[in-house]
Structures are given as C-alpha cells and as structure tokens.
C-alpha cells in the first residue's frame, strides 16, 4: 500500500519535478524538470527508482514532512541541513522515516535546489507523459502549482524497508571549478577578444535567479552585431547576452524559443552545479569543445548510474551527543527532559568510547592493517583515534548549530559545508585538528538552562534568512503574471 507524505511546512518555489516534459518543444511546451538532474537521479537511484521519477524539489525555504507509514526517503542536492526530529543527517542520504517522525530540511551552507525522492516516485497524474511542474503554464505536478504546507503526496509504490545510508557521491560535492560551456550558436555575434574576456571573467549570480533563468552580473560582454536575432530554438543552459551585455542562463523552465544572441551553452555535465549557485555566489565559464562536453556528460551519467556503490551505512547520532562532544555546554533541554552536566558527561564519555572503537578500526584500515592486526596496534592509535572521533563530531556541525553565550567560538569556515566530506574522510578531517577539543563546562554559559536543541537554532537562524531569498525568487517568477483561471480553462 502506498504511503502518504504530508508536507507540514514548505518554502516558496518548491515543486514536483521529474526528468522533464520532452517531445513537445515544437508546440511551445517548456520541458521543466529538476533544476539539478544529478540530484534527481542520485536520490531516485538510491531508492531503486528510475532515475527520472517524480520527486519533491525544495528550495532554501526548506521542508518539514511526515509519513503515515514507515517509508524510505532519499534526498540529495546542495549542502542543505537535514534532520530527523533532533538528529542531524548528512546532506545526501537515504533514511527510513517512521510515522510520527519529521524529516526536516533547512537551507544549510550552500545549494539552491534539493531533491527528496519517495518509493516509486510521487503519484500525480502524468500530463503529456511527464509529472514535472511548470507553474507558468499551469502544467504537471500538483495542479500545476508550487507545493504548499498541508499538501499530501502519495508514493507511487508501497514502501519497503531499507537501511539508512549516506550518499557519498563525489558529483554532489561542492566545487569551485569553472562551469564548462560549448560556444555557439551565435558566438559569431561576438569578437574573439570579447569571447576571450568572457572566458576569463568572474560572474556573480544576481537575485534575478529562478527556475526559468539565472541572470549574472560581471564585465559587459558587448555584441559585435545586433543583439536581437530572429527567434530560434533554445536549449537548456543557453547563455543569452541581452542588450545590457550581461549573461542570462536559461534553465529548466525556459521558453522553448528566444530572440537574443546566445554566446554559448552550459554543458549538461555542469548545469546542476550552476543550478546550485545562490545569488551573490560567483562562477566562471570555461569554453570546451563539443566532444569534451559529451565525454564529460557520459562519464557523469555512468558515475551516477553507479550510485548504489556510493552508499555507506549511516548511524544516526542524537543531537545531545553531538552537542556534548563539543564540550561547550553543560546541559540541554528538549522540552520534555533535562539532562544535568554530570549525566551528559557520562553520556559523552560513553559515546566517545564507542566512537574511538570505530575510529581505531578505521585507523587500522588506514594503515593497511588487517582485521587481526589492528588489535595489536590499537594502544598506539587509540589516543589519536579517541581525539579524532570527538573532533569528527565537531566537524559535522556548522555554525548555525551551536547556541552558546559568553564565549567566542572559532568555527572552521567550511566545517559544516560539506557533510559528505566529513562522512567520507572522518579520520583525515578529525585528526587534523585533533588537539583542538577543549573541555569547557557549564560556567562558560550565562544561561545554560535555555540552551535549545541544535536544530531549533538552525531553524531560527537559517530558515528566516533564506525564506527571504525564497520570496525574492518568487517575486522574480512573478514578473510574468500567471493566470490560474486561464490555465484551468486550458486544461479543460
């Protein structure tokens, strides 16, 4: 029996998306589809779904959802902050969600679109062979609209039981590498010098960024000819240069035809990375030849097809234990119970012992020792491993997590940016700052009794900020008013 997924909160701009509505461009139908196809495919494949099955696409506005029966869910895309109830999760994972539990995503450190996939895909009607939402024409998804709090989505298949796993896929990691582009079709509207300057320049994503197009700001890219052309077809990732000389990259919800000169197209291998930029972030465009672009795409597709080999067992770590490992607080309250500093200390030590055991085993592997040998070297490794394990927990947190008063805390800038990395290379990351752990008790806090749960802190700090971002995106979308009545008529 299918599961029901209830959206309790959801940020603006979230939609149901699949691989897109293809085959109807010649009738003016925008394909839509997931903004980051790599995230869609990864999340779906982690669940055993077809790569392009319909899923929930969320924005930095986040989501809180529950299920009516135990259901495996998989999510990926960007560096969003995910948690089940109070338990932090990696930024890409497959987890079992039980009735009564809440899976929650917040904006996290980076990324503009995350995918949450369900068993068998989201069961909404296919409109012209696709479930992708295109809000401007009112097609697909849930009545052609963005998702709202209270929406109930049905899974396409009965949920089975699956292990909790982190998805440690290399292609989901944050990358500063230039965005590869193929020049054309109207690169002859620009001089060779202009194209060279375009390839060298750094562009900043503006607030005018939505599912339809990303407007960049940077050095002007002047036209050598008229910037207006007689409309021709527009493919995903087309980089239009409008009259102001600034690049506009056409994304999933682009119009099927357009009348501006297009200097280049973003390679499909990099379109997901581009989609994950947030306004204010920068990128460069690096021209490559079309054969290289094809090779890169096929290699990426092959890697994603092997998603199953990038799954590693995930143990959920309670938030209290995470907080304890920082040695920063004397107590936490979760509304129903309160632990004293001593009890927390005992929990922490027990937890560190457990981590140290695991870490020692990991260290043993690191030194290329067999299972039988590692016991022999453990006494030497344990002190390091012990500290490393504690530090590992520290690295799983970003700045939003720790609520503390009366003490300046140095937080590594990117500590929480890429949880996959932390999960992938726990020892390396942990040992680097192994001596950094400090023991600071309750006196460090002026009001230890009001320290909240980590995730609540994240909600206050991150959600609000990015809700504004979401609203701005919404406003940008709204620049072309959409008439619901009209689309209702069109559907009849």
């Amino acid at each position, binding site marked *: 029996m299918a599961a029901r997924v209830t959206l309790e909160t959801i940020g603006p701009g979230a939609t149901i998306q699949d691989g897109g509505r293809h*085959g109807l461009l010649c*009738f003016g139908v925008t394909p839509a589809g997931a903004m980051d196809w790599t995230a869609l495919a990864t999340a779906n494949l982690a669940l055993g779904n077809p790569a392009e099955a319909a899923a929930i696409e969320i924005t930095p506005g986040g989501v809180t959802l529950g299920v009516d029966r135990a259901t495996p869910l998989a999510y990926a895309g960007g560096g969003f902050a995910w948690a089940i109830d109070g338990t932090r999760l990696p930024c890409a994972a497959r987890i079992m969600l039980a009735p009564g539990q809440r899976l929650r995503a917040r904006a996290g450190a980076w990324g503009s679109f995350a995918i949450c996939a369900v068993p068998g895909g989201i069961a909404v009607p296919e409109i012209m062979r696709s479930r992708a939402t295109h809000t401007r*024409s009112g097609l697909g998804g849930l009545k052609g609209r963005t998702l709202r709090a209270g929406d109930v989505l049905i899974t396409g298949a009965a949920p089975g039981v699956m292990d909790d796993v982190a998805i440690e896929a290399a292609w989901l990691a944050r990358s500063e590498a230039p965005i590869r582009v193929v020049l054309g079709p109207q690169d002859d509207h620009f001089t060779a010098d202009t194209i060279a300057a375009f390839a060298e320049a750094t562009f900043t994503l503006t607030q005018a960024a939505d599912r339809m197009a990303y407007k960049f700001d940077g050095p002007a890219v002047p036209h050598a000819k008229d910037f207006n052309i*007689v*409309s*021709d077809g527009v493919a995903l990732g087309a980089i239009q240069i409008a009259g102001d000389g600034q690049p506009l990259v056409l994304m999933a919800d682009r119009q099927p*035809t357009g009348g501006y000169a297009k200097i280049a197209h973003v390679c499909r291998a990099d379109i997901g990375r581009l989609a994950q930029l947030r306004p204010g972030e920068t990128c460069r465009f690096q021209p490559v030849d079309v054969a290289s672009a094809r090779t890169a795409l096929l290699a990426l597709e092959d890697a994603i097809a092997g998603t199953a080999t990038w799954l590693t067992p995930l143990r959920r770590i309670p938030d209290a234990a995470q907080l304890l490992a920082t040695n920063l607080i004397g107590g936490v309250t979760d509304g129903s119970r309160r632990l004293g500093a001593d009890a927390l200390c005992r929990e922490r030590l027990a937890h560190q012992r457990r981590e140290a055991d695991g870490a020692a085993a990991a260290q043993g592997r690191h030194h290329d020792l067999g299972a039988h040998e590692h016991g022999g070297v453990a006494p030497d490794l344990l002190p390091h491993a012990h500290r490393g394990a504690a530090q590992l927990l520290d690295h799983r947190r970003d700045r939003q997590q720790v609520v503390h008063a009366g003490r300046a805390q140095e937080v590594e800038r990117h500590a929480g940016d890429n949880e996959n990395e932390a999960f992938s290379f726990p020892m390396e990351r942990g040992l680097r700052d192994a001596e950094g752990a400090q023991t600071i008790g309750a006196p460090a806090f002026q009001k230890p009794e009001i320290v909240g749960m980590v995730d609540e802190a994240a909600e206050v700090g991150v959600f609000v900020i990015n809700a504004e971002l979401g609203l701005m995106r919404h406003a940008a979308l709204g620049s072309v008013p959409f008439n619901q009545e009209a689309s209702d008529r*069109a559907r009849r």
Partner: protein
Amino acid sequence: MACRYLPAGESALVVEFGATADPAFHAQVLALDAAMRAAAINGVRETVPTYRSLMIHFDPRRLGTADLVAALERLPRGEAGRAPAGRHWRLPACYAPPHGEDLEELAGLLDLPPERVVALHASARYTVVMYGFAPGFVFLSGLPHELAISRRQTPRPPAQPGALTIANGQALIASIAMPTGWYVLGRTPARTFDPGRDPAFPIAVGDSVSFEQVDAATFDTLHAENRPLLAQA
C-alpha cells in the same frame, strides 16, 4: 541545402538556413524536418522548427554532434526532401466587443477603418511558422502588408486565451493570458492546446490557417460548449 551547423551544447544542434524571417528559409526548415522524420535518425529526440532554423535535440549517448551532421548531410535534397503539404484549419474568430480590444486603437494607428482591419485579417490565409513562448502559442506568417505595425513600446495588460494579436508583420494566436506588446484585434474560441484532448496540439507547423468571423453570441456558445472547434477544410 545551404545551411550552417551550429552546436547548442553537446545535446542539441541548430541547422540555420538564414538570419532573416524569409519564407524561403522556412520552407527549407520544414523540408529538413520532414526528411528527418522520414529518416528517423537513431538518437534524435525532437526537433524545433522556427522561422529560419531547425533545432535538433538528441541523446548524446547515442549520437555525437559530428555523427548527426554527417547523417543530415546524407538526407535526400531538393524535391525529394520537400515537406508534404500541411492541413488547413478554419478557425472561428470574433472581432466584435468585447473581444476586439485594441481594434479601434489599431485602426487609428494604421489609418484604416476598423471594418477594413477586420476584413484584411479575416481574409488572409496564414501559414503556421512555429510555436513558441508557451504551449499552444501559434506564430503565423501571411499577415497582409496593410496590417504591418511594430510592437507597442510598453506591454498592454494580459489578453485572453485565444486572443488574435498582430505586431512586427506577424499574427499570433495566444493560448494563455499574458501581458503582451502586440495588438489584440479579436479572439477565437478554438483551443490550440488542450492537454486532455488527443492530440493536445492538432495544428502542426507548416499547416495553414484562416479565420471565419462569428458574432459575440456565437463566440460565447462555442466557447461554453467546448466542442472540437478546430474545423478542418
């Protein structure tokens, strides 16, 4: 077949026949599109004909850009590659109030009596050049020269779905309400797009279209009944 092959990323190719909206270029676009359909080149996903070019979307796993160009070069040329004649559609059109919203303004700008504007629009035979902008937005060539007018400086409020608009020497059938820089001179109750109908888009690029005047009461009846309105001659 004088044309340029221009990559649009690794998954699409533009075959460009010219830089202007010349009917001769469009005929070549349609001919290539028809020849491609007949040849069913392995790996081609879909094609998008426009005024002067054909965009070909393909699966890069099955087809490289150079392979596609080679396959296109092998397609039959000339008479053998000409597009088959399209169908002809006669669509009801109401130019009377409240549908001919900009008719008076347009007549003033063109210095023609409103009746003459309507007669010119309703007597022409149009060719479907392309769809664009939104599902079911039909771009038509064949607008009488007397009705040539440039776009508005600033867009007017949204026109109704089915609005018949003109600008830039072209005619258009709108499918959804959008602010537009074009002039609205009438409205058809025909639905160029209906996702619940098979086919959802009965009118193909290359088909021809003419309009038959109906009064406002007939328009209302046809619109309310939502019958298959696309009469084919």
